[in-house]
């Protein structure tokens, strides 16, 4: 069985790599296979067995779907409300009745937005502002002082750049926003470098599979 899966994996990998030469039927076959298998696997194996069954069916119908002591629990019929809202989403498939699904989407969007505001404030906004307030002169530590200057100048100049109510001109506004562009360029460079590193890592992973597990050359 391992032999078959390894050969299949190698074949699909080579099909995907063939796109580097040019678009071809092998690549399209691999692409369509991936989409189909992912959708099927996601719904049957994962969503049903890891979400729908333990979190809905085993609680609404514990005698049938419950495992262990949970089989003797009282049914939690209140869960039928979110289940009903979930079913409403399937009305998206009908062009005439698609409006019904909006009630469920409205609920999900409301909850998500509320949580996202708290989450963004707590993860990014407040801690980052707090940590940007740093002493510009650290006694006996030249490197820390320099680092803090870079942090403060970088933060202020980048914020200046994203202030679009005034034209980016003049000795103060123009200069500061230009410094902001330099900081942004450096950060884009860092992001690009990291992206290249990530893509090469993925390529290494595939080569380790092809040369090692498939061809046994490593």
């Amino acid at each position, binding site marked *: 069985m391992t032999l078959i899966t390894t050969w299949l994996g190698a074949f699909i990998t080579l099909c995907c790599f063939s796109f580097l030469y040019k678009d071809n039927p092998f690549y399209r076959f691999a692409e369509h296979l991936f989409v189909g298998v992912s959708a099927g696997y996601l719904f049957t194996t994962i969503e049903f067995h890891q979400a729908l069954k*333990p979190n809905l069916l085993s609680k609404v119908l514990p005698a049938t779907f419950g495992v262990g002591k949970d089989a003797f629990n009282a049914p939690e019929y209140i869960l039928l409300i979110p289940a009903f809202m979930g079913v409403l989403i399937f009305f998206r498939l009908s062009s005439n009745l698609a409006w019904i699904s909006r009630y469920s989407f409205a609920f999900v969007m409301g909850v998500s937005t509320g949580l996202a505001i708290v989450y963004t404030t707590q993860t990014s906004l407040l*801690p980052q502002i707090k940590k940007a307030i740093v002493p510009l002169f650290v006694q006996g530590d030249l490197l820390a002082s320099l680092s803090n200057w870079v942090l403060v100048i970088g933060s202020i100049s980048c914020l200046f750049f994203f202030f679009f109510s005034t034209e980016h001109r003049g000795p103060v506004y123009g200069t500061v926003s230009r410094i902001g562009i330099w900081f942004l360029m450096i*950060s884009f460079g860092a992001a690009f470098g990291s992206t290249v590193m990530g893509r*090469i890592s993925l390529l*290494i992973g595939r080569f380790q599979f092809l040369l090692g597990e498939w061809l046994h050359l490593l």
Partner: protein
Amino acid sequence: MDFLLKLKDLDRRVIFVFIALAVALPLLFKMSFPVVPGRNVKSLFAHLDKLEPGTRTLLSFDFDPASAPELHPAAVAVLVHMFRCQLKPVCMANWPVGGDMAQSALEEALRIFKETPDEYYRQVGKPVPPTKDLKKGVDYVNMGYKPGGMAHIKGLIHDYLKAYPLDKDGAATGEMPIFDLPNGKKFTLADAGLIMSFTAGTGGIEVYIGLGGEHKRPMAASCTSVNIPKFYTYLQTKQLIGLVGGLPGAAECEALIDYKGPAQRGMAPQSIAHLVIMLFIIVGNIAYLYELSKTKKA
């Protein structure tokens, strides 16, 4: 010098061949470069070393096979270290196939842990674990995937098992000893000695950081290379105690557990491929400047 102008129109497939060779040849010739662990990885391992044996840790596998070459080796190394420190990892996933990723990492980590000789523990000054046959539900558990993102994680802070009546394999979690804490209470997110997410994109460690004010647990992340610049900001604010960045970070983890796995073996091709890309960027820029000067002269 006109060959420089020809380089500007170089077929991209030639570059692909160079990159393929830069990756394949170091692997075939088993080239290896030294890996020196950085402070972001060391601080994570130092935290794990400080935790009491038996402490439950929460590992969230928020990635899929597309990011596995970068995150899987890191997950294996962290799990091996946890087993060697006699910690009890509770694995879960916010990404649909994360449960399968956790299962694969657990199987490999258990094998490496089992093969660890007693001599290793004497060398690093750790007590030899009482058993090397770790049991599911007692020493580790894989809870699998649950949808819901932040709303789901929020619920786990006060009642972990309500959202997880069954583990990934369908076994009842209420009867698993791993969730019985020494103080007689049931495990919740707020009891974890560390919350760590293997994050490939959204819905990973940032969800736990967002709820940091509620669970108040130390957090760490292992992320893909693409996310490193973004997650560095969380290190600076001390919202994360450690960060394992991409394949190099995973190689540092492997170096710390004294295991030469795929990440350490991948460092030579990684470095050589980077050199080739740098070379192409430099040559491309020289060609561009040469063309510019020629146009100006004309």
